[in-house]
């Protein structure tokens, strides 16, 4: 999967499946500084992923205040040809003032053993042929 540099940061496209519906999520940041994977609420609402009464809530606290997100188990998160089934993600507003629809965090990157190849600008996975 090609890494696209924007704002000096590496972005990929992720395919997300929820309750049988799939969407291509563009402009997802590959972020080893984030423990968890997050998607933008406006994007995932297109496949019917919206808040439910009993969702687990998190407050993500850092520089410039806190943001409230909810978590949800999705059917599948796929990058290129590498997929993880039944994966818990966070959903938040992600109103950060630039084009970003998600964060691929360390939970996905370590689970898949992802290799961030900045020499060739590729996100690679050891058990997938490139």
């Amino acid at each position, binding site marked *: 999967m090609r890494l696209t540099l924007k*704002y*000096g940061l590496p972005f990929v496209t992720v395919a997300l499946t929820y309750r049988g519906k799939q969407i291509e999520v563009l402009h997802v940041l590959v972020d080893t*500084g984030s423990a*968890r994977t997050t998607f933008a609420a406006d994007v995932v609402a297109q496949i019917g992923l919206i808040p439910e*009464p009993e969702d687990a*809530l998190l*407050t993500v*606290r850092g520089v*410039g205040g806190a943001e409230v997100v909810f978590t949800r188990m999705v059917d599948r998160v796929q990058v290129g040809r590498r997929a993880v089934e039944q994966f818990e993600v966070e959903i938040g507003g992600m109103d950060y003032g630039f084009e970003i629809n998600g*964060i691929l965090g360390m939970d996905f990157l370590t689970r898949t053993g992802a290799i961030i190849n900045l020499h060739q600008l590729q996100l690679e996975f050891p058990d997938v042929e490139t």
Partner: protein
Amino acid sequence: MRWPDVQAAYPGQWLVIEALEAHTEGNRRILDQITVVEACPDAVTAMQTYRQLHQQYPLREFYFVHTSRVSLDIEERRWVGIRRSDAAYA
């Protein structure tokens, strides 16, 4: 108000609430005093309203919640955020 009072006053309702007093215990955010900011017709409206208020008043502590939740049980996590360069394509 405390959470049980909010539940009693707004049964079966999506709300945007604000924590007037809150503290952190370990990785849990405990809301001690709550006020209801807005009653919303559905989940999407509640989250949108939360986002608008959060953008407008970033230092205040808002949440979008449904009153059927037994407890608020909010987990707190640290994140330093994204540091990008100003150039659109760097």
